[in-house]
């Protein structure tokens, strides 16, 4: 095994000298407390190591030992429903051992070694296997059947299946004879280096929407399963609330939520809320499909840097089982800052705003691991990635935002003005975009929902409104002709009645496809009807005086997803009211 002797220590970055046998990205242990580190640079006999724990008290002369393995995560049953830190240490175990504070020097195994799993075995002797062939299935939670896979790189045939009533993760489940004739024991779990993407057969085009139950997202700026999106926004504009909403309601099979350099209380909130919330598809507790990675802002920055790799590697693993995984990283800016801090301590030449020159390629490397792929000839899985971006001072031209923009196809821009006027979610309709709209429009059309024409109409009204608002700012609303004032009112309905969505309301938090459609149609039809009345000479104030006008703004919070027929009644009422007005004005 490789080794070395510590020479220089400044914070989380240390340098060892007289090193021999250490490899790039190898996991190492330092000093008597066996702190965990990773080799990030090798220069002759000198190695730069990032240490995943507090280095206070560590001095020159401490020994460095190689483990022979790259920094890896454990993949196997027992991941779901748990919370890990940035290098996959289970936080519950740390709490049991150390109390309320996280101290260093403890390295519990990510997967429980004692727990036994019942496996429903699919293979038999002499079956041929390739990477990702399913050996058997474990009911990990009531929602997820965990498929035990032949690890990447293993091709061959089954020599023996080892039958046990219950398997612990370290138990061997089958023995494969590989192409070279070597015996390979396959256990319930395997390790995979976090910085290396898991192989697949090929990338596939996007077909299906990642349905999130968020109106402005699904109907206007949708994300595809396997798509990548970013949510940039200044502080308090709603990145975390949006990420939480997606984690709760997105129709993915598995959710991986990474709290990357953010608040402890937000993780506590997820841990309290998710077990109680029900997945709209299955009615089961949301925690039964969720994995959390909590490396809060006050935990070591080095582990923050690796947290997104830990997360995405687990995501790829569940993708390989054929699942649709959605990963949220809040916030990728904190990850980039960790990168900057580490680079600064290594005295690398900084590029823009102190970030290292490789910021862009690292970001690309992360987002590239999202996608919809063919895992084996007959299995498809996807990883959707949604990264929050926290631009300093809300300035979107800064390096993390502008680099991220290069690699994502959906960009949900959070607008400070909207957030300040409590228009939530504060997703700007003027600056956001989705590159997946065309690919997934068919998904809506299969449900008989003409999403394209609805969306075009909405965007048209909102664009005209922006223009009219500028005029109103100068001359007041009264100076506009009635028809244009109606456009302002239509835009008001779209914004307050459709785009705004209250994440805190139990009725409104999740909006079904059908409800989204009916709400949108109600609003647009109301506008059409009103336009018709205006042409007959009816004054606008008569129309917006109708109580139904303000009721349309409350459809989201008042009509449940299961009460679609209420929309028919609402539509009837609008028609009646309009008829009455027509009669009054002949």
């Amino acid at each position, binding site marked *: 095994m490789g080794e070395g002797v510590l020479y220089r220590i400044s914070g989380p970055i240390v340098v060892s000298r007289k090193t021999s046998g250490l490899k790039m990205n190898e996991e190492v242990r330092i000093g008597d407390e066996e702190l965990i580190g990773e080799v990030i640079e090798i220069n002759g006999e000198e190695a730069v190591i990032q240490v995943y724990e507090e280095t206070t008290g560590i001095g020159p002369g401490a020994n460095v030992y190689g483990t022979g393995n790259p920094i890896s995560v454990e993949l196997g049953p027992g991941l779901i429903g748990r919370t890990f830190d940035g290098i996959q240490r289970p936080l519950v175990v740390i709490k049991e051992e150390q109390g*309320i504070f996280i101290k260093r020097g403890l390295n519990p195994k990510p997967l429980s070694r004692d727990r036994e799993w019942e496996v429903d075995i699919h293979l038999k002797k002499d079956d041929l296997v390739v990477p990702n062939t399913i050996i058997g299935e474990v009911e990990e939670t009531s929602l997820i059947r965990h498929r035990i896979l032949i690890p990447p790189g293993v091709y061959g045939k089954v020599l023996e299946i080892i039958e046990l009533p219950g398997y612990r993760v370290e138990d061997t489940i089958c023995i494969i004879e590989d192409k070279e004739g070597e015996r390979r024991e396959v256990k319930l779990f395997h390790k995979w280096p976090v910085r290396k993407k898991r192989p697949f057969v090929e990338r596939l085009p996007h077909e299906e929407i990642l349905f999130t139950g968020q109106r402005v997202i699904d109907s206007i700026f949708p994300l595809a399963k396997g798509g990548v999106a970013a949510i940039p926004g200044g502080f308090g504009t709603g990145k975390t609330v949006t990420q939480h909403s997606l984690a709760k309601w997105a129709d993915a099979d598995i959710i991986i939520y990474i709290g990357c350099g953010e608040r402890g*209380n937000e993780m506590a909130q997820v841990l309290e809320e998710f077990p109680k919330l029900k997945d709209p598809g299955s009615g089961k507790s949301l925690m039964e499909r969720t994995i959390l990675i909590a490396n809060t802002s006050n935990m070591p920055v080095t582990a923050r840097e690796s947290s997104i790799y830990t997360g995405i590697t687990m995501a790829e693993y569940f993708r390989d089982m054929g699942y649709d995984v959605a990963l949220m990283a809040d916030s990728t800016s904190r990850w980039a800052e960790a990168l900057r801090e580490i680079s600064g301590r290594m005295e690398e030449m900084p590029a823009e705003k102190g970030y290292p020159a490789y910021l862009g390629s690292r970001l690309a490397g992360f987002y590239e691991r999202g996608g919809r792929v063919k895992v084996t000839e007959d299995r498809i899985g996807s990883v959707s990635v949604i990264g929050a971006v926290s631009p300093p001072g809300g300035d979107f031209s800064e390096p993390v935002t502008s680099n991220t923009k290069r690699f994502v196809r959906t960009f949900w821009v959070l607008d400070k003005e909207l957030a300040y006027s409590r228009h939530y979610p504060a997703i700007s309709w003027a600056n956001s975009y989705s590159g997946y709209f065309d690919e997934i429009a068919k998904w809506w059309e299969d449900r008989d929902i003409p999403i394209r024409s609805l969306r075009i109409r909405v965007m048209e009204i909102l664009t005209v409104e922006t223009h009219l608002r500028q005029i109103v700012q100068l001359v007041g609303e009264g100076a506009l002709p009635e028809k244009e004032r109606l456009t302002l009112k239509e835009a008001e309905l779209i914004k307050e009645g459709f785009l705004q969505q209250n994440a805190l309301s139990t009725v409104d938090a999740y909006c079904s496809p059908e409800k989204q459609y009916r709400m949108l149609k109600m609003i647009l039809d109301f506008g059409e009807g009103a336009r018709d009345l205006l042409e007959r000479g009816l004054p606008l104030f008569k129309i917006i005086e109708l109580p139904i006008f303000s009721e349309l703004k409350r459809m989201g919070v008042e009509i449940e997803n299961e009460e679609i027929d209420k929309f028919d009644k609402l539509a009837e009422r609008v028609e009646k009211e309009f008829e009455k007005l027509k009669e009054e004005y002949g």
Partner: protein
Amino acid sequence: MDSIYHKRHIGAQELTGPILIVEGVENVGFGELVLIEQDDINRLGRVLEVAGNRAVCQIFAGTSGIDREKVRIRFTGSPMTLPVSEEMVGRVFDGLGRPIDGCGEVIGEEERDVNGNPLNPEAREYPRENILTGISAIDGLTTLIRGQKLPIFSGAGLPHNEIAAQVVNQARISKEEDFIIIFAAMGIKADDADFFMRRFEEGGALSRLVTFINLADSPSVERLITPRCALTAAEYLAFDKGNHVLVIMTDLTNYCEALREVASAMGEVPSRKGYPGYLYSDLATLYERTGRVKGKEGSITQIPILTMPNDDITHPIPDLTGYITEGQIVLSRELHQRDIYPPIDILSSLSRLMKDGIGEGRTRKDHPDLYSQLYASYSRVQRVRSLASIIGEDELSEVDRSYLRFGEDFEGKFLNQGKTESRSIEETLNRGWEVLMNLPESELVRLSKEEIEEYRSK
């Protein structure tokens, strides 16, 4: 601190600003405390970097007066610690946690590393209980929650100290139980420190107060330790001894400047405005030492105060703070000039934890909707005002004119209150209803019909 065990060294290699570099040392650890002695000089410092037999130390009181050849440097082998005990309550300490009230040393039950350790997210309990401060703008619209960190973003000359003192004096957990107040002053003027002491005394808070003071003329680098001492005491009193602790820290801007000073003396690559790239992480190690813990009685609530350079909210200090804290209370120079106290700019202020701490069984049933309505209506006021300034008030529609009346009343009757006036939550909410009654009912879209029926006459 016993000296026999310490590794001693005579003479430094290099001195620059707060940085002292020693060569020829052995067995020195990163982050350990160093003692600097020379004639009658006694200073404390910390190892920022060790490479082989060379150690880079940060001297909290700076290196001025230090003689490169004569200075004696002792390495203590452990990080900076603070003796903690319940006897700290009622005492006054300097910026490094040494008693300065003439009442002798604190006999610590334990020595604690002032840097603390991160609270395990699995151990946290999501904060839900509100703290009523008797200030309408806060209780009604940016409700403070026990276990929250809610900073005041202020500007030079604005009454942030008044507000903080009022919160301390008026905030109560219940009739029987009271907060322990920890007050950490970093680089503030002696006048301001005296002001706080006077106000705490008037409010009867002195017996529940722990004070850590680093004044404007105290060594600036010492400020980097002051909040850490305060929070170490807070964690002990809250999570070991079961108290509810309210920490007031002022002024974080001075703290950040000290951090910048050290970073530039170390020759580090700066990020924005000369502040180091790790400013966010560093501030987080302060602000995150807040919260509630499962199965523990106590709590830590923080109200950090910072003055925004040039009133600029996008300056790195308020910006990065806002990215860590759970909301912010922003003061407005314009309201202050119009003599409205507290001059809280409601539209840019936010308490992110309030949603779970208000409403039925917590404050009052109508609170969430009332909050949302007041907020929405007041944000409309701003638009109407700017329109009125262009086309004139007379040209406004009747509805728009009602917004102007509402705006006046909101600022005059709801926001504005006396510096020692404490309003009950009932009164705050009723005043909210009262000022809303300037608007026609059709504008109250965030309130339900039932609520309007029930509360309009209050």
